[in-house]
């Protein structure tokens, strides 16, 4: 249903938010199946949001975003990773469209979002694994209720991309998440716990030999936390951690392909320590060190994965950073067959990140005025 009016000059100009991230790196791979790269600009993205107040104290935002995926991703030059509408009021949020699925509850300090993908995302069991985007993004229908500004309860359904049936847009996943999250603007009020999250995802897979939807599904549980080790405005330190227990199929005892990898039982742990130096209330430099371990209990051959990752970024000026990242990955058993041998990767990078709202008309839920001095509808 489309409504139009003859009085076109009476339109209200929306808030216009634009976000951009440019990631450019030179990659040196040692002992790797993957070639080095002179100029890798994958994960570069552009995000645009248009927001307006509705007539009934709700707000709506339309978001359109695109991303440049890895060269061999089979996604083409550009992947539209965000196309969704968000409706929200003080305590409720509804999202409809394509965006990040709730298969990751934490944002880790890595150069690119998918640098530790196999450890920090509950992976899409319908994907052939050619790209990382199909694990991260899906078509979602989400409802979130917010209790006391900090407790987020979300129920969500997704249509994850199915490599075998790419034209199937039916619901193939459902889940629920419970997250305690301190608003960014109030982080100085909380010394230790910034976030604790628990999430359950249920993928409606067709498990051979099982007719019951629940029993034939792949299920996983995520546990996540962010701890302020030192909530200091100048020398800030935090620790982030996430564990994923994939309650996969015990009959998958070998990893012949990516489907097996995402459907067998596994336990994944990943954590990072971060130190951020802020000078004059602006980031100055940041170093982080982290690692992950993933084990597979049901496989006939001992198989596991290990990752060590460390990086440092220096802010050259507003929004521009230069950085260096070293990553070591070790695969054994079936994972070596699937993902290749151990690898050392060294990356030198320049990153540009920007986010700005133009034509501002109303405050954000996380504004201190709203959080501490009553919400104005």
């Amino acid at each position, binding site marked *: 249903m489309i409504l139009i009016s003859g009085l076109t000059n009476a339109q209200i100009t929306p808030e216009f938010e634009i976000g951009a991230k440019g990631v450019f790196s030179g990659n040196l791979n040692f002992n790797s199946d993957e070639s080095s790269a002179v100029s890798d600009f994958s994960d570069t993205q552009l995000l645009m949001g248009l927001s307006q107040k509705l*007539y009934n104290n709700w707000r709506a935002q339309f978001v359109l975003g695109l991303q440049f995926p890895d060269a061999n991703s089979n996604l083409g030059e550009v992947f539209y990773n965000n196309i969704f509408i968000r409706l929200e009021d003080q305590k409720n949020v509804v999202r409809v469209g394509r965006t990040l699925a709730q298969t990751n509850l934490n944002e880790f300090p890595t150069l690119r979002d998918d640098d530790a993908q196999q450890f920090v995302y509950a992976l899409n069991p319908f994907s052939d694994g050619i790209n990382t985007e199909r694990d991260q993004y899906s078509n979602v229908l989400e409802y979130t209720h917010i209790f006391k500004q900090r407790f987020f309860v979300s129920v969500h359904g997704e249509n994850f991309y199915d490599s075998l049936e790419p034209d199937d847009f039916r619901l193939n996943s459902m889940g629920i998440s419970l997250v305690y999250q301190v608003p960014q603007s109030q982080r100085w009020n909380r010394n230790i716990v910034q976030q604790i999250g628990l999430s359950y995802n249920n993928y409606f897979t067709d498990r051979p030999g099982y007719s019951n939807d629940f029993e034939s599904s792949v299920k996983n549980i995520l546990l996540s936390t962010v701890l302020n080790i030192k909530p200091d405005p100048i020398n800030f330190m935090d620790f982030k951690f996430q564990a994923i227990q994939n309650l996969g199929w015990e009959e998958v005892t070998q990893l012949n392909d990516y489907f097996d990898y995402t459907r067998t039982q596994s336990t994944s742990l990943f954590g990072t320590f971060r130190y951020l130096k802020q000078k004059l209330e602006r980031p100055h430099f940041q170093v982080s060190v982290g690692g992950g371990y993933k084990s597979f209990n049901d496989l006939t051959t001992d198989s596991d994965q290990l990752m060590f990752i460390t990086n440092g970024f220096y802010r050259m000026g*507003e929004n521009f950073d230069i950085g260096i990242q070293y990553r070591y990955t070790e695969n054994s058993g079936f994972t070596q067959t699937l993902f290749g041998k151990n690898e050392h990767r060294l990356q030198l990078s320049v990153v540009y990140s920007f986010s700005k709202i133009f034509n501002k008309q109303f405050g954000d839920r996380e504004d201190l*005025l709203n959080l501490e001095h009553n919400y104005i509808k």
Partner: protein
Amino acid sequence: MDRRDFLATGAMSTAGMLFIPGNLLAKEAKTENSKRLVQTLPYKRDGEWKEFELYIDLHTHEPAPGYQYHTLAFNDMIPGPEIRVNAGDKVRVKFINKTDLNHTIHWHGIFVPWRMDGVPFVTQLPVMPKNEFIYEFVAKPEGTHFYHCHWGTLMHMQAGMFGSLIVENPNDTIKERFPYEREYTLVYSAHDTNYIREEMNGMLERMKQRSYLMKEGRFNSEQWAVFDNKEQFTASMENGYQPPYVTNRRSNSDLPQANWFTVNGKSYPSTPYLFIKSGENIRIRLINAGAETHHLHMHGHDFWMVADDGVPLEHPFKRNTVPLTPGKTFDIIVEGTNRGIWTFHDHDTRKVTNNGLYPGGNLLALVYEDLPAEELVISKYSGNPMYNPNAGMGYMKGMDTMKNENMDSMNKMMFGEDKLPKIALDE
């Protein structure tokens, strides 16, 4: 269908018209009007001192029905309460800062001792969060003055930190020449409510970080961007410090662009009325506590300019439009010589708007209380034959709906009780 027209229903909201009937001379109107006038701050006697108490806190303010925003307010009102004293009184003001921001009070136009002038780092340290400061001065000179915060003045003043300060002279030469019983204080201001919101959020967030550092004794000049002297400042720059106004650090390219214009904190249709009777003089004290100039024009009258910045004019003169520049006060005398209801408004009509829509802003009315009831009936004076039962429009071909017997609902919608003023919210 053009996608650009998708849900273009915003147009419909402004195409509608809303008329609310009212009778300015009703008792309820006067009761309501008292809330639109400045409130006088009571004082306690302490020997020869008149002791006042002002506190500052965050406040949710509604300049016009349906629109609220967070702001700062003295004693939970905008403008702050009026301090009214006699010339020569010893005045003590206890100022309590309930916010998480720094503040001071500057006594605009008053000959205070210089340590009482309220300029941070010049005459005093800022009054920090949850702290108090006692201001003491002798009230002089006489006249119309005001007070306002002098910390972060660009934001704090337009956020609402201002109030009138009247120093009365028992032998007032103005009152001798133009005898009057009633007087009104009108405090004008202009507000960029989006700027206020963003700045207040930014300041509150920065203060949380800074409070953390203060508790640990690690807050320094560079973090605060406040230095003891120029040498310390330049030495810091040589060591790599960059002031926040440089374009590669934190400079803000967006200066405020006011979108709300208020009188006594209110915008039309919530602005106050000025009541007068035929033959009566009223005194109006005009104060501009904002950063915009207001070219105030009164319909149907010339008024006497009797004081400038509180100073009585030796030779009062007549005008009907006065440019009230930022920081300025004027006193005017209106003589009740032309019975009616007359608008008094900014003739820079960009400021007779609410968030970009006309009418609004500082539009208000001078209302004669002795206006006969029959003169309040607006339809008699309409030039539109549609509302003239004798015009015979209903007998024209195809105009059956305009016959008198069919016009009740239309007239009711248009005129209600058929008394002025209506509240017209549409263009």
